[in-house]
């Protein structure tokens, strides 16, 4: 496993969920430390599945902690954060209109280049269902942008 490459990918995945650079980076580092406690897999697919599962669980824990603290203590509402991350350009806006899971799947598949079968395992879906979902999301984006291509 190329740690340099995977660090960036796991960090992006975490950032998309927690929307906070430092927290995303802390979770990324914790993910790799926990990964060390597990038996090392020879297959990259299994390694990726384990990394994303650990990261996803840690993001969920973080979300629960934040919810317990109370929304009043957070810096901004989800909508504000969403606006700050996804604004200005139409592609950003189109991504912003997707639901969070769809956005995550697009990031995993096209930015992080995670294989479809691994995405299926992360979301508990068959690879056929993942392919159908990706096609639907891309159609939605194309329709939203009113173009054949995304740019």
């Amino acid at each position: 496993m190329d740690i340099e490459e995977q660090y960036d990918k796991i960090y992006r995945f975490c950032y998309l969920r927690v929307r906070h650079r430092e927290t995303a980076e802390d979770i990324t580092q914790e993910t790799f430390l926990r990964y060390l406690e597990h038996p090392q897999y020879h297959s990259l697919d299994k390694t990726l599945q384990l990394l994303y599962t650990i990261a996803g669980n840690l993001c969920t824990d973080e979300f629960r902690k934040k919810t317990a603290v109370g929304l009043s203590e957070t810096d901004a509402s989800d909508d504000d954060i969403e606006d700050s991350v996804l604004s200005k350009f139409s592609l950003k806006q189109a991504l912003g209109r997707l639901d969070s899971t769809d956005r995550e799947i697009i990031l995993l598949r096209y930015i992080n280049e995670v294989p479809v079968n691994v995405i299926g395992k992360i979301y508990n879906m068959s690879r056929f269902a993942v392919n159908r979902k990706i096609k639907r999301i891309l159609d939605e984006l194309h329709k939203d942008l009113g173009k054949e291509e995304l740019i």
Partner: protein
Amino acid sequence: MTRSEKIALNEAFGIPEPEKKRQFIAEYEQLAKKQKRKSISPLFY
């Protein structure tokens, strides 16, 4: 999806670069080396 679409998509997500990556990777590699060196004790001597 074309390469230019991928680049546009990456920019559209607007994810800032991580800042503590280098330092962590150096620490992680040390830890991983230590982890590899750990051998399983034999059951019988």
